């Protein structure tokens, strides 16, 4: 299959993996055919155990492939890693589907519940049923719980769900 992913998207995926170091690792992988974790650590200056952690994360999502050989002297395994750019599109699609599913669940929840909030930053919003049990008093700060209008949240969620549906062609 023809790959239709550009470098910018690849880097965004790396950022989504959560670490700045992942971006560096992917950068190296992108520019080499096959490379060992040791070489990546040397080139990037990232600690070897972190390099491996990132590689395993990528491997979990099939974004890299792995070949194992044995060091003839020490008998240890050497891992050779290779980027699989053709898996990237599938990865993005599956992430989108998962996010869509989660946001849909949340949207239904937001639509079907009334929320109460003490308007103190750091405190939680509680649904009506729970607020009744708490006698409309915040369990964290003790302030009275007031009605919270979640119209904006519903709107944001609806827009996002629509957008993702469109992108996924559903």
């Amino acid at each position: 299959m023809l790959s239709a992913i550009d470098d910018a998207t690849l880097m965004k995926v790396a950022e989504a993996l959560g670490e700045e170091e992942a971006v560096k690792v992917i950068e190296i992988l992108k520019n080499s055919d096959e490379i060992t974790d040791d070489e990546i650590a040397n080139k990037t200056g990232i600690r070897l155990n972190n390099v491996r952690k990132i590689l395993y994360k990528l491997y979990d999502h099939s974004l890299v492939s792995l070949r194992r050989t044995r060091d003839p002297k020490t008998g240890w395994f050497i891992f050779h890693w290779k980027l699989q750019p053709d898996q990237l599109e599938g990865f993005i699609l599956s992430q989108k589907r998962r996010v869509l599913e989660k946001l849909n669940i949340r949207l239904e929840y937001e639509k079907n519940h009334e929320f109460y909030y003490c308007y103190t930053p750091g405190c939680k919003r509680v649904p009506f049923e729970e607020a009744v049990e708490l006698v409309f008093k915040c369990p964290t700060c003790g302030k009275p719980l007031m009605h919270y209008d979640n119209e904006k949240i519903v709107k944001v969620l609806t827009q996002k769900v629509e957008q993702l549906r469109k992108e996924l062609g559903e």
Partner: protein
Amino acid sequence: MPKPNDLEQKALQIIMSAGNSGLLQSELWRKLGASSREGSRIALKLESKGLIRRERELRNGRWTYRLYPKRLPASMDSIADCPCVMCPDSPKCGPAGNVTPQNCERLTEWLFHAAESTQDILGDS
């Protein structure tokens, strides 16, 4: 001399990067550095493979084709900031888990933030 397949791949990339507005067949071969004969053959081939769509268009009194990609390149933009992407709690998130999309604090925080700045959330797509 590049193999025909390379040229096809390159052409597809160019068409995809043109996005929804598509591009004229003549622009394509100019960008590819191919002749008009090669260019239209590539376009035909990509169409028969179901990768692009061609539409007739009158341009400067001549009929030509505008090429549209059938699939846009996948992009992370719409979900890049959503906490559910690569969430560390992902395996625990679900009806039977400790975390659910209903009570997830990360998601709540993101939604609060997004609701305050409605424009930001949609990202570029």
